[in-house]
């Protein structure tokens, strides 16, 4: 445990930028929205900025990326596959706890199953993570319901907590500790840990009612979704409000479905690209020959909430698939963000 003066906290990011491409929360002037991006200058990183509009998932799982390329000379019957995939090392600076949990969902899903996703692993091997405790929740947050905040518990290299004049810096890995020591940070004592606890408790006491109301209900709803005890009409009601825009998927820190496409270039070589996809799209399950086993939109919506809120899916993430960031609630034009879905199901349970 270490301490760093508030005015000097970005020096950590400066130091990291010698080895890594540093990403952090930056407030865009025109829109006043926060984005988790690589800033022009480290000084643009704003640790007090609200939760980024988009999760940092693009840093470890880009929206579109080339996984390899090839060329085929039909005349000479020669195929050449060039596997030169090499992502750059990245440091994620000032990640919120919910988003760290999102990355951990992706880790367990992509790396911790029967097969390892080499592409994702390659990104992750080179990621340094510095989290930032939320000293106050934002309007749409409900990480307290999904056990993913407001302070990170594990999975970071360094975790920072704003204690007023200084940040408490906890090391979660050897390389995190090494960095703090190299920077000559002051050691913190047990009093600082107590101060952190007070900050976190204060944060927890300030969540909006959408979070506090749903808190006790999430596990009930998870139970219902897992056991399939939810009436078809409820899914239909939810499905009918979906515009199939895919926004919820793209802003979700733990959504990871992707598409693979071979795209031919002008020089007659071909790129194999993978890009984000969404289970809300009608073409998602359509097979060659046009047979589509999953047609009605409620079938598809039901799938997303099953992914976020069922025990069977939690087995893959070792936690619920929803990390309580509230972004889908923010962006959904149909008003069926996850907290609302919990509310609908909860109403159904209580109306019996």
């Amino acid at each position, binding site marked *: 445990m270490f301490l760093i003066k508030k005015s000097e906290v970005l020096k950590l990011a400066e130091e990291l930028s010698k080895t890594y491409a540093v990403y952090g929360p930056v407030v865009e002037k025109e829109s006043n929205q926060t984005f988790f991006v690589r800033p022009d200058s480290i000084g643009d990183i704003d640790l007090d900025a609200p939760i980024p509009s988009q999760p940092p998932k693009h840093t470890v799982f880009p929206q579109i990326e080339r*996984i*390899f390329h*090839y060329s*085929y000379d*039909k005349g000479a*019957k*020669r*195929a050449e*596959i060039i*596997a030169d*995939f*090499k992502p750059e090392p990245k440091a994620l600076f000032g990640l919120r706890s919910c988003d760290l949990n999102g990355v951990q969902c992706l880790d367990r*899903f*992509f790396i911790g*199953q*029967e*097969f*390892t*996703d*080499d*592409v994702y692993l*390659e990104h992750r091997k080179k990621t340094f993570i510095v989290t930032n405790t939320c000293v106050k929740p934002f309007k749409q947050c409900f990480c307290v319901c999904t056990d993913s905040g407001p302070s990170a518990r594990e999975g970071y290299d360094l975790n920072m907590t704003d204690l007023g004049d200084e940040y408490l810096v906890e090391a979660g890995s050897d390389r995190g500790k090494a960095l703090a020591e190299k920077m000559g940070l002051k050691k913190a004592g047990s009093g600082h840990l107590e101060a952190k606890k007070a900050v976190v408790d204060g944060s927890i006491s300030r969540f909006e009612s959408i979070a506090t109301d749903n808190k006790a209900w999430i596990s009930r709803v998870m139970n219902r979704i897992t056991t*399939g005890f939810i009436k078809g009409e409820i899914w239909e009601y939810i499905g009918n409000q979906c515009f199939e825009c895919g926004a919820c998927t793209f802003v979700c820190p733990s959504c*990871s*479905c*992707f*598409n*693979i*496409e*071979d795209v*031919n270039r002008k020089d007659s070589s*071909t790129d*194999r690209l*993978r890009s984000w*996809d969404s*289970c809300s799209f009608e073409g*998602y*399950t*359509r*097979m*060659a*020959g046009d047979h589509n*086993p*999953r047609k009605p939109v409620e*079938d598809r919506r039901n*799938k997303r909430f*099953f992914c976020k809120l*069922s025990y*069977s*899916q939690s087995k893959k993430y070792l936690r619920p698939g929803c990390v309580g960031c509230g972004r889908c609630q923010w962006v959904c034009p149909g008003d069926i963000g996850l907290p609302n879905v919990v509310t609908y199901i909860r109403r159904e349970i209580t109306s019996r």
Partner: protein
Amino acid sequence: MCEKGNCENTNRAVTIPEIATIDEIKDEIEDVKTFYLSFDDKKLDGSFRIKSGQFIMCTVFGAGEFAVSLPPSPENDRFHISVRKVGKVTDALHELTAGDKVGIRGPFGNGFPFDEIKGKNVVYVAGGIGLIPLRSSIVHVLQHREDFGRIILLYGARSPKDLMYEYMIEKWQKIDGFETFISIDNPVDGWKGEVGFVNQLIEKANVPAENTVAFVCGPPVMFNNVIRDLMARGLKDDSIISTLERHMKCGIGKCQHCAIGRTLVCTDGPVYTYRQIKTLGEQI
């Protein structure tokens, strides 16, 4: 990245395809061709192991990749795939000629049971090109004829010219105790076999209910009728086995396109018992 991907655990190509050559192409029925393949990396020809019921991801260079079941037996059989033209990528495959290259990833999927069903009667029920994914198991079981009870093939197609692998069936029929019942939907001149839907053959063949496993593969309508009649005959839902098809992109349980119920066809399937299929809660 490890060159082929995941090579610590397995020697199969997971992310980066292996290059293979089309040695020979055989026209099967309309719109279906068989492609005999061999790996350019000769080491793989010996070490590429498959299980009946598994599938591979096949890249047609410049067009894309598709999932396809493996018809060859895991033992002593030539490596090949039989593919129907159904879309952009398979159309492009059909344009290729002997000598052309393709890319192969896999094999993936769980595969049909083999050791578990030794000592039992085995019934194959196929409709149309549904015989393609069953071919591997049929050949394998026939290679070990003495380990099984009755071996029965019930096969139906729209017309005689829609019967897959007819030349193979003739060969299998010479094997002692291999029973075949073949039907076409509507009578045509010169047809000496059965006429009607394939589920009607179940009674004709006097399919035994005890100690029997059935492998069923074909279009959804046929599937439902066959299941109904097999169950009516007394087969248990966990001794009826099928293989499912889904839109697939990665083959390794990551892209999630093939999610069905709480399972993924690529890693939990493609082979399911009917008991499992019933719990998926989705259209097959």
